[in-house]
C-alpha cells in the first residue's frame, strides 16, 4: 500500500514537471535554446548521511508501564532522482527534482518490561525488528548556472523540499515470558505505518560533462533536510528528520 501511494505521488510530481516545463516552452520571448537552457537529469545514488529514527514510549504491561525504546539507525540507502533545470535569465534558473528513497532496516528495541508478579521489578528485553521507511521528495530550487569550462558545467541549487515520509513505527511489543519469568525475550513487534509531508530545504551542486551534443553525464551532490512529527497512536508522537547528504550520478539531456 505504501509503495502504491509513493508511486502515485511520484507520478503526480512528474506530471507537474511536465506542466511547468511546457509553460516555459511556450514563453514567447524565449530565444532558441542552447545546451543548458533546459536540462533533464536522471540520477541514481546513495544517501550517505541522515538521522536515526527513534521512539520512546510506554505501554501498560503486567499492570505497570513498560518503557519501550526503538532506534532505527541511519544507514546508507540507494535513491533515484529525476529533475529538470531551466535557465531563466543569464546564469539564473530554476529546477525541479524528485527523489525517491525506499528503505527497510533493522530497528533495535530496548524495553523494560514489568515483572508479572512483583511491582518495581522490570526486566530488560532487547531485540530487533524490521521497519520500512520511504522518503519521496520534491525539490523546488533556484539554480545558478556557472559559466561552462569546456564541456563541464556546474549548477548550484538551493530551495525548498517537500518530502512525503512513510515510516513504520512500533506501537507495542509481544514478549515471551516463560516461567519463572526470569528471562523474557522479544517475540515480535507490533507496528503501524505513519505518513506526513513536511517542507524543508535543500542545497546541491550538479556537475555535467557534456560528452555528446545533447546529452552528457553528470554527478549530483545534495543535502536536504525536513523535520516533522509522526503519530504512532498509542505509542505517541515521534520526531522524524528526513533527508541527508545524497550523492548520485546519472545522465543529462539537453533540450
Amino acid at each position, binding site marked *: 500500500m505504501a509503495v502504491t501511494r509513493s508511486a502515485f505521488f511520484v507520478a503526480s510530481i512528474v506530471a507537474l514537471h511536465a506542466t511547468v516545463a511546457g509553460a516555459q516552452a511556450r514563453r514567447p520571448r524565449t530565444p532558441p535554446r542552447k545546451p543548458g537552457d533546459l536540462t533533464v537529469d536522471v540520477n541514481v545514488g546513495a544517501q550517505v548521511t541522515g538521522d536515526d529514527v527513534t521512539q520512546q514510549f510506554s505501554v501498560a504491561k503486567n499492570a505497570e508501564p513498560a518503557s519501550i525504546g526503538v532506534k532505527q539507525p541511519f544507514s546508507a540507502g540507494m535513491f533515484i532522482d529525476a529533475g529538470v533545470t531551466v535557465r531563466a535569465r543569464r546564469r539564473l534558473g530554476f529546477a525541479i527534482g524528485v527523489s525517491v528513497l525506499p528503505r527497510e532496516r533493522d530497528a533495535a528495541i530496548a524495553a523494560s518490561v514489568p515483572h*508479572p*508478579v512483583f*511491582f518495581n521489578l522490570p526486566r530488560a528485553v532487547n531485540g530487533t525488528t524490521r521497519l520500512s521507511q520511504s522518503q519521496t521528495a520534491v525539490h523546488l530550487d533556484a539554480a545558478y548556472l556557472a559559466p561552462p569550462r569546456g564541456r563541464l558545467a556546474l549548477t548550484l541549487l538551493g530551495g525548498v523540499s517537500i518530502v512525503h515520509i512513510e515510516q513504520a513505527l512500533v506501537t507495542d511489543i509481544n514478549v515471551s515470558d516463560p516461567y*519463572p519469568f526470569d528471562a523474557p525475550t522479544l517475540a515480535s513487534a507490533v507496528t503501524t505505518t505513519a505518513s506526513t509531508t513536511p517542507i524543508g530545504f535543500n542545497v546541491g551542486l550538479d556537475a555535467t560533462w557534456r560528452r555528446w551534443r545533447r546529452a552528457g553525464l553528470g554527478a549530483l551532490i545534495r543535502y536536504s533536510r525536513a523535520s516533522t512529527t509522526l503519530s504512532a497512536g498509542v505509542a505517541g508522537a515521534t520526531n522524524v528528520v528526513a533527508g541527508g547528504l545524497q550523492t548520485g550520478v546519472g545522465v543529462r539531456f539537453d533540450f
Partner: protein
Amino acid sequence: MTRTLSVCALVVLGTLSARGADAQARPLALAVTRAALSDLRAWDVQVDRMVSDRDLRLRSSDRDPLVPARQHQRFDQFYRGIRIVGGDLTRQTAPDGTVSLFGTIHSAISLDTAPAYAIADAAQRIAEAAGGMLVGSDPELVILPLSDGYHLAYIGNAFTDTEGVHVVLDAKSGAVLQKYSAFQNEVGTGTGTYGDPKKVSSTASGGAFVADDKLRPAEITTYDAHGNLTRAIQLLAGATPVPSDVASSTNNTWSDTTVVDAHVYAGWYYDYLFKRFGRHGLDNRDLRMAIVTHSVRLADIARSSTAVIGTYYLNAFFCSTCGPNSRGEVVFGEGAPASFAGVDVKPFSAALDVVGHELTHGVTAASANLNGFPFSEAGALNEGFSDIFGISTAFFYEASGNGQLQASYLQGKDLTSPPGAVVPIFRGPLTRSISNPASTGDPDHYTLRNIGGDPHFNSTILSHAFYLAIEGGVNRTSRLAVQGVGSANRDQIEKVFFRALTALLPSNATFALTRVATIQASRDLYAAGGAVERAVTQAWDAVGVQERTAPTAAGFASPAAGSCPAAFPWTLWLTASAGTSNLTLNALQFDYFDGGGTALNSETLLPTQIASNFTQCGPGSSRLLAQSDMCARLCVNVEPATSGSVTATFFAADDGNRPVTFSTPNVLLR
C-alpha cells in the same frame, strides 16, 4: 502432710495390654547411610528382598532436583497384603548404588488380619464416631502400630458441620482408636491487610476476572464462599465448584484484601518452591492449589459457636483430602475485630509466613506424609517443617525486621496489629518464636517436649534447631553453642531441611530420625564434615535430640488455670519415649522438691495407674512399643511449698526382662 499428686480422671482409650501382637514384634527405626557402608549394603539387600516378596511396595520414584543423577524412592510396608500405617521407607540412589535408607520397618508381626466387620459397616461406624457423614473413598483396612502394640484397624474421613474428622476404628472390637481433626490448623488473628499493592494473577471470564492463576505451571484457584459456611464446607467436602464460587473482580482491580493476599501469597509460595528447591508445586507435579476465603462473615462472629470461631475465624488450615478430587484445600480464617478479640486480628491470609505454613502441609502430605496423628513426634515435625518453610518464604521475599510485612523468626507476626501482639481472648500471642521459643511459651529442647499436647507446641524443637543452624547462638536450656552458617547462607540450611522432608523422611519420622536425615542431606548437598553439616549437627545437639536408641522421658509443667482441682495448681505433662526395645513399665515414681531443692516426698504409680493415666497420645497401657511414645496429663502440687520441682522416674523391663530405668529432668513448678 504434703499431698503431692493427684491423678485426674481422663479418657482411657483401648485396653491396658498389648493386643493381638506377638510380644517380640517391634518397629525398627532405619537410618543407614554410607557412613556405615556394610550396614547399608545389608539393608539394601533386605529391602530388595522385601520388595520382591511384596512386603514393600513402591509408592513413588522421583528424580532429585538438586543433586544430579540421584533418585528417591518411597515404599510402603504391607503385612499379608494390608498396609502398615507408618511402615514406610525412603531409598536414595546414585549411579554407583544406594546412598541412604530412612524409615520404619516392622518385624515379627503376628496378627490375625480378618476384620470382625465389613467395610460398609466400618463406614457407618466412622460416620457415627465423627458425628457426621463419611467423605472420600471407602475406609481402608490397615495395621496400626500404637504404643501398646499392633491393631487391625479401619481408617476413614468424615465431615461434621464444622470440620473434617479423621477416625481410626479397631477392626476387631470396633473401638475408636484415634479421632482427630483432619484440618491442620494454624491459630492466628487479623482483619484487613496492610495496604501493600500486589499483583493478582487472574483469568478473564464472562466479562469479569476470576482469581484463577494460569500464569504459573500449577493452577491456583481462590474461592470466595461469600460468608456462606455451608457452601464452604461443601467445597471442602469435594463439591464441584461453580463459577460463582471463584473470587472475582469486575475490572481486575481487586479490592478484597483477603482474597488478594491469599491468592498472591499462594503464587509466591509456588515460586519459592521452584526457585529455591526446583520443586514443581506441592506434589512436585504441579498439583492445583485450591484456597477458600470468606467461609464466614466477620459481622457474624459474635453469634458464632466456639467451634466455628476456632475453625473459620481465628484459624487457618490445610486439609489434604478436601476439595475437588480430594487433592487438598487451604482455608484462611476471617480474623476478628478488636471489639471481639481485644486486638485487631487480621484475616489469616494477611501473613505470608502463615500462607507458607499451610501450603507446606501440602508439600508434606505429598512427600514425607508425616503422621497426621497430631499427638506424635511426626505430628510435631509436620508443624515444625511448616513453620520453617513459612518463615523461609517470608525471608525469601521480605526484608528482615520486626515490622509489618517484614520477615522474622516470629511465625504469624503479621496476624495482629501491632505485629505479634498479645490477643486477650487467647491470653497470649498467636505467634511462635523459633529463635527464642520460650518467649512464646514453646519448648527449645527435647526434654521439654509434650507429645500428648498441641503439635504446634512441640514443633519448635525442630524449628529452633533450624534457626540455630542458620543464625547460630546458644540454646537457653542446654547452654550448648552452635556455629551457624549465617543468614547470608540460609538457603543451605533451607535446602538441607527441605531435602530431609521431601526425599528422606518416612511418615512416622521422629526427631531422632530427622536429625540423621538432615545430617545426611547436608552430606548430599555440601561437603561432608563441612560448615553446613557441622551447623546442623551442633543445632541438633543443642536442642537435645540424639539418635533414639535408649528410652527417654520429658516433663513440662504449666499453671493448671482451672483445668485441675483447686488444690492442685500445676498441670504436669509427661512423655515417655521408647528406644530400640519394647518396654513393660512396672512403676513410675515422682520425687518432689521445694523451691530450695529440698526433697519433699515421693509417690509411685503402679502399672494399672500408669495405664489409666497415660492416654494422651495413645491407648492407655503399661506396655510401650519400641520407637513409640506414651503421654499423660497430671495435676500436681508441692504443698506446703508454693513452688518447687518434680522428677519422674520410670522403672521398666525390656523384652528380655532386663531392667531399664529412665527419668525426666527436674521439672520446675513455678
